[in-house]
Structures are given as C-alpha cells and as structure tokens.
C-alpha cells in the first residue's frame, strides 16, 4: 500500500522514506514518555481502587500494587454503614447543586451586562468587578463578616458567599461575545427583550462556556472542605469532603514511625481507599460528559482572553 503511493508521487518518495526512518526513534521516545506520564496519572487512582477492594491479607502480602485476591466490599461497608457518610453525601449534593444554580445565575447576568459594548457605565461596572480580584480584606475580616451574618453552622452560609467572582464573569463574557451579532440584532428588531435574548439565544449558543464554568464551580464545591471546616462546628452538618478529611487524618498514626506494624493502620488503609473512591465517584461520573465541553471551552476562553 505504502509503496504504491510512493511510486505514484513523483520526486518525493525517497525523501519521505528517509524522513520516516529518522523520525521513528524520536516518535518511539515521545510515545514512551507520554505513555509513562499517562500511566503515572492513572496509577494512584488505580492503586486506591485496588486497595479498596483488597483484604487485610492481600495488603500485607503485596509490596507494590495490591491485587485484591480476596475481593470484598468490607471496606466500603465500613464507610457506608457509618451513619454520617450517607448524610454527608446528601449534604454535599445539596450544597453543590444549590451553589451551582445560585452562582451561575449571578455570574451569567453579570457577564451578559459586561458583553454589552455600548452600555453607559460599563467601565465603572467592570472596575467594580475587578477591584476584588486584586485586593481583598483577607481571611480574618472575611470570616468575621460571615460570623456577624450568623453564617456559622448554617448551610446557607456555605452557599451565599461563594462561587461568584470576576474570573468566572470575564470568562463567560468571552463566550457571550462569540455569539454572532446579527442573531442578536435580528431578535431585537422583532422586539425580543434583552433578558429573553440572553435566555433564548445567547445561553444555548454558549453551552461549552457554561459547561466549563459549571464544572469549575461543581468540582470546587464538591471538593471544598476548607470553609465547612471553618464555618461548621456541629458535625451533623459536615459535608462529605470534610468527613473525608477527618477520616483520612484520623489514621495518620503512622506519621510517628515506631517501625511496628499496627494492625489498625493496615485496616485503615483499605477503609481510607474506599472513602477516597466514594468521594471521587461523582466526579468520575460527570467527567466524561463534561470533558469534551471543557476542552473546547477553555480553548475558546484562553484564545480570547
């Protein structure tokens, strides 16, 4: 097949053949490196999955990768039968979902305003958005503000102050600016209101952008343990990320190395792995669906800004 083509094109075949040979060494090296890096990215996750299904015996007998010879769900049972974990899971779902809707609504409206090139006062509005990106009161004044609003031990307090910001707005604006102007103009000529233009034309045409920013907010909220740790003192409200952190940290006993193998630590390793997988699963589940969008989304956003 290859030869046929080579014969067919005049003059080029010798050059092409030569190049193919020279390139191949590099190509092999490059492929090898990429394969290694990809494996390195996946290895820790695979490691934890295997660990979570392994038994104590498997764990003790293996050096590197743990092969769950005695495949079992015991580690998951320990996690899921703890009365706190399913509730923490639900709290996390609630916080993530409500925060997503809340912050996207505010961000989208602001981005739409910013996309209006000839709106009087736009510059002032933009500066108003920008200042908090450069300058902030810092952790303690922010915390004291939330405390004075009674946002401690209050799920609302974990939603209202978060997820809105200049960065998201600017990125979204870049997507909105991509929507062809004549679509908007013709809609306006037909008397469609500005708000309906946003809802009916701009949002459907900026799906990649919306998906990208949504993913950021979603993952950020799902993984957030920091603000729950600061704002919540009642464990009955802890979301999954904080519960995860507490579970993982409670077994850091082996940080003080006395050399002796503690049976409890071994046991805890599998339990930790199961806990990690439980926390990771929702992200893994939405990841393939959003991946296509966010790559496109970041590319447009990046080139534009």
């Amino acid at each position, binding site marked *: 097949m290859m030869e046929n083509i080579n014969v067919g094109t005049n003059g080029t075949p010798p050059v092409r053949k030569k190049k193919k040979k020279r390139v191949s060494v590099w190509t092999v090296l490059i492929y090898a490196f990429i394969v290694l*890096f990809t494996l390195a990215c996946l290895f*820790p996750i695979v490691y934890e999955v295997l660990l979570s299904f392994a038994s104590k015996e498997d764990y003790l007998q293996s050096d590197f990768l743990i092969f769950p010879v005695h495949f079992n769900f015991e580690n998951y049972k320990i996690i899921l039968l703890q009365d706190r974990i399913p509730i923490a899971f639900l709290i996390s779902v609630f916080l993530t979902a409500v925060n997503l809707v809340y912050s996207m609504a505010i961000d989208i409206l602001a981005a*739409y305003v910013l996309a209006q090139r000839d709106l*009087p006062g736009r510059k002032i509005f933009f500066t108003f958005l920008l200042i908090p990106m*450069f300058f902030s009161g810092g*952790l303690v004044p*922010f915390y004291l*503000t939330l405390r004075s609003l009674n946002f401690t031990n209050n799920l609302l307090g974990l939603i209202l102050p978060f997820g809105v910001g200049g960065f998201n707005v600017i990125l979204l604006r870049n997507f909105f600016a991509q929507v062809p102007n004549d679509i908007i103009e013709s809609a306006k000529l037909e008397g469609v209101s500005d708000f309906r233009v946003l809802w009916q034309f701009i949002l459907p045409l900026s799906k990649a952008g919306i998906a990208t920013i949504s993913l950021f907010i979603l993952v950020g909220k799902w993984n957030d343990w920091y603000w729950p740790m600061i704002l919540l003192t009642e464990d009955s409200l802890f979301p999954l990320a904080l519960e995860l952190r507490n579970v993982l940290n409670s077994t850091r006993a082996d940080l003080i190395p006395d050399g002796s193998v503690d049976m409890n630590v071994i046991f805890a390793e599998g339990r930790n792995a199961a806990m*990690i997988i439980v926390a990771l699963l929702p992200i893994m589940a939405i990841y393939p669906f959003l991946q296509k969008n966010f790559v496109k989304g970041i590319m447009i956003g990046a080139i534009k800004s």
Partner: protein
Amino acid sequence: MEQLERTECLPVSEQIKSVKNGKQKNDKLRKKLKKKWQFYVMMIPIIAFLLVFSYYPMYGIVLAFKDYMPSKGIWGSEWIGFDHFKALFALPDFPRAFRNTLIISFLSLVFCFPAPILLALLLNEIKVKWFKKFTQTAIYLPNFISWVIIAGIVNSLLSYSSGAVNNILESLGLSRVEFLTEPKYFYPILILSQIWRDAGWGTIIYIAAISSIDPSLYEAAQIDGCKRLKATWYITLPSIMPIIIIMFVQAVGNVLNSNFDAIFNLYNPTTYEVADVIDTLVYRTGIDKGEFERATAIGLFKTVINFILLMSANKIVKKINGYGIYEVAE
C-alpha cells in the same frame, strides 16, 4: 412598565451625567438608558454580592492597626498603629513563612511551570488520534481530584510502615525512609504532586496556542528539509512564546499566593520548618488561635505586596499583548 423604566434608570443616568457632558449628549444617553434598563437590573445581584462579601470585609483590614476587643467591635477598639507589624518581624514564624513562600514559589516556577509546555509539545507530536484522545482524558483527570484525596494517596504510598514505596525500598534491600516527617522530602513531594495534578491540565492552553499556528509554516519547513525536532524548536516554540511569557508573568505576579490547599494537606508539625507559608500561618494564627489582629496584619502584608506584583505583571502583559490580563479585549 413605563414607570418602572424611569425609576430604574434615573440614578444611573445621574451618575453618568457627571462623566460625560453636553446637554444633547445627555438626552441621547437618557434615551439609551431607557432602552437598556434591563441591563442595569441584571447588575444588581452581583453588585449586592460584592458589596457584602468583598467590599464590606475590606473594612476589616483596620483590625491590623487595632487592639481588638470583641465587646467594643472592630471600629470601637483602640488604634495602636503599627505595633502588630513590628511584632510580626520579631517572631521567628513570620520570616520563616515568608522565606518558605518564596522558596516554594521559586521551585514551582522552575519545575511546575515548564512541565505543561513540554508535555504540550510532546502531545503535539502524537498523530494517532484515539491515543491522543485517551491520553488527554487521562492527564486532565488529576486536576479534578481534591488535595485532601491527593494527600491521602501520598500518605498511603509513602507511609513509613506500610507504604508501597517503602515496601519496594525494603525488597530492594534498602532501608525504609521517613518521607512524610523528614523536612528534606517535603519539597520534592509537594512539587511532584503539583506536577501530577496540574501539568496535564495546564497543557490545554498551550495546545490551543499550538493548534492556531499556521500549518503552511510547517509545510514550508518540510520542503526545506527541516526535521521535526527542529521544526518544534524553530516554529512551534517561537509561535507560542507570547502565551508562555504571559503565563510566566502571571505566575510571577502570584508568587506570594502559594498553593494553600496542597501545603495544608501535605504538611504536619514536623515539617513546618520548611512547609509553613504565609497562607497557612494566617490560617493557624487567625482561625486556630483566634489572634485576629495579627492574622489580619500578616494577610495585609501579603495583600499589599501581591497587589504591587500583580499590577506590575499586568503592565508587562499589557506591553506584550496590547491589553492586560484583567482587561476586556474588544
């Protein structure tokens, strides 16, 4: 409806009036505002949000200059000038945190910054489509894993008594290493986990830049007998240089913003000596110990330097780009 329009627009038009002058212009402006009142309504939520959660807390900065008494409130407490700042430099914790912040940022610039560029250049050489797609899916994934989990994985891989790495060392006849408690291993662990998490994700922007290079450049090079490696060096790299510079300047502007999440989850009291940075110190001082004024002072110190750095970075980017990072390109 007409009524509503007018009341919504008036205050804003009043504001604009002072900016632009000329009566005829004003009439035109008023017409425009009347037509666009919906946009001003749409601004309200974010303005309210920023006023409450960003602008109002800025006032709390005065804490850094006060002797805070909860009973008197922030404003009622006594002014004490720069005492908190003077105390900061006398304590060993603060200079140490400042030093560690700079060291970690420097290491990140040297090792973490080039990683995605290299990776993107290599990925660009991959021509097998399904393989490229699979690779990209895999290397973006770590970016979505929280530092709590990464720290958990690091702990289970490196733990002294039962970690996989130590198991291997032992089976090779070497002795076990206290990776998690020895300060000298902290930086390598931190940098490697940062690369693991962010290098793949970081390629997106460079791949976008590479894909916008004019393919005729490569064709011309090929006709001239240019090898692929050379083409990468002489065409791809120079073409994406502007983006690299912008990203670099931005990274330098963020030198004092160390990766709080990573450090906070990976460090422990035995590694504070090398791992404690400004952000973690602010947290421990302010939230753990409740020394609000001191934590605010440390935070303010950082904010001011950061502000200067970011502004300078933005200026440099503006020179390269024509417009700054924080500016809307028209």
